[in-house]
């Protein structure tokens, strides 16, 4: 029997799948198995909470990746839309009576969750249209600066526009979702709802990035002038993806508000926005899966650090920030596209 030596040689020369150089594979394996092992170890209640946090961060990360990864606009102001969604949901659906608390009374409407949700999303989108029209002319590092500005302005509005947001007191008793008289009070029901919304967001994003619209966005990222020469109005495309992304962030905000049932401006500080950007870059630019992976890694990083024996609990958030900062530096040095990314910054 004649042995086909060339085929055997090819087989031997092929790089094994578990080669050390395959960072994508290892990132997936490590993060997913870490998450699975952790959830199994800590039990169901923990898994549900962590997964809900993950779902909210993942919606945010996927939506931001549309802007940062696919369109190439490094926006650090996404938390503003997150906050707008959350505050819209809070004001529309809360029915707390603040007069008893002797603090400023604000208008609350007591709407059900599913009536307030579209309004929150649309409101975030409307704000995004205004902001996007103003921001469209900026690029690269100036874009970063003005998006910082948007985040700071949004935070100050939440903190200081007291007749509407009660400032630092925050808003209580935000409604839980309710489907035909069945209130989703349990944590598990809410998790299912959040995952459904995450799936919707991922589907929409996937639809966008595989369509001709998505290809134009990628072209804008690679060379805006070149695609303009072909007759595309890049300003409109950039505005469109900005608004879509902001609406997704508004959705995440509304979910977040309803989940915690209490919000105050501290959830929407500039730092959260920076953390969000680092999730997107960590996971990988211009991949939806990368954003999901990044969000999972981010959530798991914090939960993992809770169990470090030498780290006091109050420093967990800070320690995570240190690790993320160092990771960002290392990624920029050795792997500018992030763990599983397609686009090098």
């Amino acid at each position: 029997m004649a042995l086909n030596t060339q085929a055997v040689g090819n087989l031997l020369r092929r790089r094994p799948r578990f080669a050390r150089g395959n960072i994508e594979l290892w990132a997936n394996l490590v993060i997913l198995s870490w998450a699975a092992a952790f959830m199994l170890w800590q039990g169901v209640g923990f898994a549900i909470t962590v997964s809900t946090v993950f779902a909210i961060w993942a919606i945010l990360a996927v939506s931001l990746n549309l802007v940062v990864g696919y369109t190439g606009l490094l926006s650090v102001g996404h938390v503003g839309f997150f906050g707008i969604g959350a505050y819209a949901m809070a004001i529309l659906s809360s029915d707390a009576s603040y007069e008893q608390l002797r603090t400023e009374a604000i208008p609350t409407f007591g709407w059900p969750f599913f009536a307030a949700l579209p309004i929150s999303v649309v409101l975030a989108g409307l704000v995004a249209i205004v902001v996007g029209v103003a921001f469209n002319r900026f690029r690269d590092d100036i874009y970063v600066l003005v998006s910082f500005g948007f985040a700071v302005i949004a935070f100050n509005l939440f903190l200081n526009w007291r007749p509407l947001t009660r400032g630092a007191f925050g808003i209580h008793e935000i409604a839980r979702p309710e489907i035909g008289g069945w209130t989703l009070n349990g944590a598990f029901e809410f998790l299912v709802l959040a995952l459904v919304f995450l799936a919707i967001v991922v589907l929409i994003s996937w639809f966008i990035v595989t369509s001709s619209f998505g290809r134009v966005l990628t072209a804008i990222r690679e060379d805006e002038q070149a695609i303009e020469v072909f007759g595309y109005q890049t300003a409109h495309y950039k505005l469109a993806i900005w608004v879509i992304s902001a609406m997704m962030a508004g959705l995440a905000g509304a979910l977040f508000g309803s989940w915690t049932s209490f919000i105050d401006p501290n959830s929407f500080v500039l730092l959260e926005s920076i953390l969000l950007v680092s999730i997107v870059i960590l996971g990988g630019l211009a991949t939806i899966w990368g954003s999901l992976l990044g969000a999972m890694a981010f959530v798991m990083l914090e939960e993992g650090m809770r169990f470090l024996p030498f780290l006091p609990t109050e420093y967990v958030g800070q320690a995570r920030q240190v690790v993320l900062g160092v990771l960002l530096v290392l990624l920029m040095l050795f792997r500018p596209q992030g763990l599983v990314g397609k686009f090098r910054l």
Partner: protein
Amino acid sequence: MSLAQLKVAALSSALRIQEHHSRALATTLTTAVVAYVIWKIVQSPEQALQFAFNGLPVGAVYALLALGFTLVYSTVWFFDLYYGAAAALGAYGVFYLRSQDFLGGRYDVNSHFVNIVFAAVVAGVVAWALHENFHSRLRSRFRPKVLLALGALPTGAVGVYMWLVLANPSSLNALLSPVIGVSVAAVAFWALQRAHRRLSFGRGRSAIVALVPAAAALGAYCGFLVAVTPESKLYLGWGVSCLLAGAVSLALYRGLYVYMRLRAKSPLIMLVASLGILLAITAIITIIFRAAPRPLPEAFGSDVWTIAGANIKGFNVFAIGVALAGFAGLLVLLKRTAFGTAVRAIGDDEEVSKVVGINTTVVVAVVFFIGAMFAALAGILSGHDTAIQPRMGLLLLLKGWIASVIGGIGNLHGAIIGGFALGMIEQFGIWDLAGEWKDVISFVVLIVFLSFWPQGLLPRR
């Protein structure tokens, strides 16, 4: 027609405002706002003067930030966000060095880890400086091992000395007095010798020998004076913490940014990397000092001066003076010295500067050192004026950034004008509003400027 095209078509109708119409609108609105403020100033000049006195010291802090920021940005052309961390490091450095004696030692935060890290950074910077200066000259004379020993001795000495200083902040003045004495003596000798050479037209060399004891005596007296005045500890702390922030910046540039800039395709890589550094340093500061705001010890000039019915603290006048002096010093450095010429050449074209023989790595590293010192000084001044908290760095960085945009990015005159202008705009902007809207006003001003006057008040060259 696909869904995407439909969406784009619908949105395109919202964008029909023509460019020149919006610019005219912006000019009109800005003029109206300025006219309204001028009208208010005419209505109540006393209050306006008070606002100006409130705005000037804040503007001085912003001007310092903008100066350093402009210096660094117009040399390397990327936004170094470590700059914000430098401001926080400067302020917290003063707190760190004074925490034993101050507020009854309640917030005493001397930790071995921090001391060793900073001593190592300073030792590294010294090692680098020695290497850059002497290695190529001495390489042919000594064997490598001897050379290594020659370098390691002063490096180790400086590191240990720095560690001693950081570990014993309550005797800062005694520990630092030799350094003060030697540097005063050196500066005095240099100045005397220069004056002598100018007056005697190079004749009379023997007189220079007589200058040595004079300078040494002056240095010894200054060192003694510092050693016996415990009040000097705070101001020595300012100097040490500025130097440390600068040393960290230099180390970051030499140890990290140099390699990163070789690979980086876009300035965003550098920006994201320095964002990571800012995140990490802010978090470390929070871990060491806690998130709560802290006061800095009382500096001089807490007495209030009343000028034409408006009040200003002596310290605030000092802050304005520091900003002006920093501006003058930077101007002299950039326009009158060979170093300044090199810096401007690198800002114009780094590759060509390398070709003509400028050691760009060294020059840029020194620029980073100076820039971070400005940031640290601004952080210290603002910390004495208000309070310090870990996240002050990011906000100060952004304010310095805004000030340099208002003044015109890459222009030193613009930086100082922009800084004071931003301080004034914040003060006069909140005339009819509450004080908490300051940040919103400055960022709205930023967006307006970038949209309609991206060149700033004074365009670059």
